[in-house]
């Protein structure tokens, strides 16, 4: 399990307008590029000081590569990070205000508390 790394992906994509669009258009390519080039960058440090050990497991990589926010919820990705990024990705495709957010809730409606643990 590398919940931290999934969260790091959601966090670093969400805060960059160009990466939001790139992830929307090419999720699998963006995930592959990010895992190879960005996953190990320590955010406040020069590239030479990068980490050496971070990688997704298969289920995490596939959930991100398929925009599968239900799977991300079930893997314990942070609920706020997933929601915020996916609103940026897909809210624009819905005409009614909050329609995407409501569909998101319905797709998770087989869950009741306790939800998957988001602790990192």
């Amino acid at each position, binding site marked *: 399990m590398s919940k931290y790394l999934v969260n790091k992906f959601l*966090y670093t994509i969400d805060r960059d307008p160009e990466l939001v669009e790139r992830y929307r258009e090419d999720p699998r390519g963006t995930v592959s590029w990010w895992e190879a080039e960005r996953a190990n960058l*320590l955010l406040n440090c020069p590239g030479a000081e990068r980490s050496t050990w971070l990688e997704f497991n298969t289920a995490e990589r596939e959930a991100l590569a398929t925009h599968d926010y239900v799977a991300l919820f079930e893997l314990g990705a942070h609920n706020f990070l997933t929601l915020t990024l996916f609103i940026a990705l897909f809210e624009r495709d819905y005409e009614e205000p909050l329609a995407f957010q409501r569909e998101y809730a319905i797709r998770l409606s087989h869950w*009741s508390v306790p939800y998957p643990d988001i602790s990192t």
Partner: protein
Amino acid sequence: MATVAAVIASTHHPFYYRASTSTGADRPPFADEWVAKIGAFRETLTRARPDVLVMVGSDHFHQLWLDNMPQFLIGKAPCYDANWYNEEREFGLPRMFLQGHEELSGYLLREGMDAGFDLAFSNELRIDHSITCPLITLRPEADLPIVPIYTNIFAPPMPQPRRFVELGRTIREMVEAWPSDKRVAIIGTGHLSLELGGPRQFGPQGPDPEFDRKAVEWISSGDLDSALAQVSLDSLWQPGNATHGFMDFMLMMGAAGAGMKADYSDSLDLFHTMEAYFTWYPEGAAAR
């Protein structure tokens, strides 16, 4: 010594700015009632005539991140830029610029550590909507210096609820002992029941109206004993997966004082969440 001119606790709803400024077909049906309630709430700060605002909120994974996560942090900078790209994108919030109050920041850091809170600090902090939303509702001129205090209500493991209460009590005591003639308002925002990124999000009401009813009663009556007896880090997952923001309300109950009834309280049952607004006047009714 400084005067605590008001203690104010509220929810922070990032949709208020857009709802209150939209017109015509874009204006939601609940906007007029919401604006009227905010107008009355704003008056409770205005009449307290504050010089400085101590503002308690929580960074929503903007500057504070899981590689280096403080539990309680005080900003100590001369100025603060505010609001982030994703808040502009999702909520339409404007970029803001706020003056800081380094002397009070430094004083609270030193005294806070000496009182048993090993506080983190930041000399360059970009503020997010947990602090700009209450400025937009309570002081839209944003013309007073602020001391931002961030709490971790977001990323487990989090501090226990009682630590939030104790920090609020300590902030109140420290401000009252600050050698200054300034009038200080202590303002903090949190949440009642709230769900984000889960099956109960964006419903017609908050995810747990019964929790909200109890929480409003605890806050408005200053019933810290009941709040502490019924709230734990584990129990807060039940009313909604983002309900740990209620611990910032508990911090403000600590700042207001156990058993202190709010001098002003109001709420608004909105889609997605219940909004709630509370003001205490430590100087007593004469100050109102």
